[in-house]
């Protein structure tokens, strides 16, 4: 890693969701019942650096914790363990204005263009609310500022008195982006931000993201299950499986030859327009429930190379090449 301070650093971040036992369940346990607290390790000890101006793609299937991680980064969830360090400062240690600024600098673009906009608010209020509340823009300038934001995302300011339901999916997503941009962020967490859009609209929004990156120097954490999109956009790709990072590598390196068996399976199995009719054997089995993940390496029940060790020992992420880490015991054997 370069000595340059990363814009955002995650240190051993975990997020657990726990369903506690109530009095009745405890009582049942007293008389020999076996009720346990249900704990979901949505994110399990994830460390990650994002440098200024970088686009990091976060990839994984459902239940892998990528969305939760994104929300921890964006400050929507507090991590159960670990630190989120923004420009060298632990966010949880910040208070007052500093905390608010750190919060505002990281914004999130959501998946569902239907539910990410408050249906009872006009577009102008959706975009203008936060700058007004935080006093980022003088109250008198808010209308002009909203117009500017709308134009930046390619919408006609004439529509700002509308309500979200009067827009198409793609347009709503643009409104969501304008809302985030209105608080002048440095870092955008895009959580499946184009997954719900039609193919032709996806391209439009992706292009908008790329424009914004060049125009505003934004840094992205781009969360997606769509490997093609991630490959196209990211400088670096992080692959998660059941709450853990299994591999992290520069995009080209990863797509050139993934190291972790799961990453390999994932990359192989994505249908691609340029690789048709390949005969392959899909990876077997289902994604286990995050409520009771397999022991050791979470991937071992589905892994064609699994050994006894994989069942018992959790593989650590280790650097296999500069800037390329992978969590697989096989790497140890190879040397």
């Amino acid at each position: 890693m370069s000595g340059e301070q990363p814009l955002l650093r995650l240190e051993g971040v975990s997020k657990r969701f726990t369903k506690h036992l109530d009095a009745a369940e405890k009582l049942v346990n007293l008389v020999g019942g076996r009720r346990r607290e249900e704990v979901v390790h949505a994110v399990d000890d994830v460390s990650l650096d994002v440098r200024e101006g970088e686009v990091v793609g976060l990839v994984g299937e459902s239940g892998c914790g990528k969305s939760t991680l994104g929300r921890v980064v964006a400050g929507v969830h507090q991590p159960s363990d670990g630190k989120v360090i923004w420009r060298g400062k632990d966010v949880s240690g910040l208070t007052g204005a500093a905390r608010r600024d750190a919060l505002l600098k990281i914004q999130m673009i959501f998946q569902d263009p239907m539910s990410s906009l408050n249906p009872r608010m006009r577009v102008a209020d959706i975009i203008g609310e936060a700058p007004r509340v935080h006093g980022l823009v003088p109250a008198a300038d808010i209308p002009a500022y909203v117009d500017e934001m709308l134009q930046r995302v390619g919408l006609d300011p004439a529509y700002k008195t509308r309500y979200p339901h009067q827009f198409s999916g793609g347009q709503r997503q643009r409104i969501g982006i304008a809302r985030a941009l209105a608080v002048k962020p440095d870092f955008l967490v895009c959580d499946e931000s184009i997954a719900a859009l039609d193919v032709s609209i996806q391209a439009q929004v992706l292009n908008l993201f790329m424009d914004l990156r060049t125009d505003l120097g934004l840094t992205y954490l781009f969360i997606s299950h769509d490997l093609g999109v991630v490959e196209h956009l990211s400088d670096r790709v992080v692959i998660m499986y059941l709450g853990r990072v299994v591999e992290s590598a520069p995009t080209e390196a990863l797509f050139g030859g993934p190291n972790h068996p799961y990453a390999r399976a994932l990359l192989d199995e994505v249908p691609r327009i340029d690789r048709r009719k390949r005969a392959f054997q899909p990876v077997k089995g289902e994604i286990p429930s995050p409520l009771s993940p397999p022991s050791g390496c979470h991937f071992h029940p589905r892994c064609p190379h699994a050994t006894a060790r994989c069942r018992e020992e959790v593989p650590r992420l280790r650097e296999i090449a500069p800037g390329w880490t992978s969590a697989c015991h096989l790497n140890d054997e190879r040397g």
Partner: protein
Amino acid sequence: MTTPNTQPGATPPGGSALAAAMPAVPPVESPLRRFLSDFSASWLALLATLMLAVIILIALFAPWISPQDPYDLAVVSIFDARLPPGSTSMDGTTFWLGTDGAGRDLLSAIFYGLRISLSVGVMSGIIAIIVGMSVGLAAAYAGGRTETLIMRVVDLQLSLPAVLIALILLAILGKGVDKIIIALVIAQWAYYARTVRASALVERRREYVEAAACLGLGHARIVFRHILPNCVAPLIVVGTVQTAHAIALEATLSFLGVGLPLTEPSLGLLISNGFEYMLSGKYWIAVFPGVALLLTIVSINIVGDQLRDVLNPRLQK
């Protein structure tokens, strides 16, 4: 229903490469306007709304439009008791709907009775909404043990029928408009709490709430400006139905003799008084207040029904 796919186009401002099929800018369709157009799709609902409006106006202006002040004992005379519709009193006033057992002009008594029935229903509704809404929102937003505790209380309360709760409360509290409002509020707040909590829970999980948190907006702002307005629709539906319930409940309680005092006759009490005359041929004493009560409750329920259809998120797109 609104037309699908009528979306305003995006304009290509400056450099952004967005050519667009540009429909003419349609009028701004606010949720309210959309709601109104959906609501008025049913003529029955419109009729009921009209009827309700008339009833409310009568209730509001009862003191000014009633031929007689049925509470003024200097005017009411038992000389005029139980006169049939259309009779005239000693001093020449006509009782269009007859008089009751105490010599009150029934038309005036119905107007005032409407006033009392409606105000009992509406007042208890409003207070119960405020209480229920606060509790429900608090539960949904606080989560955890607070929520569990609150919802347990709500569940427990809901497992006992309102009529029973009100009956016992009134047995303890005694009669009176204030007492019955208290009883109805206690009997009904839990419905609102549950409704608000249910929709607040749904709303709280929506991404716009996360977005608001992300934008650093305060808890109060998120709860009251973002979540609450989106919980209003089910609240309105439940509110109308519960208000109709409250009115019927008050009538029932008054009938059972634990509701309102005789001197402040609601419609229910008027019917209850008329019940005594049911077999004596003096039908008007019970029938006319009964019709008024029925019209009130039916129109509220029809309005509520249409509201349910229009505001139901499942049927709405």
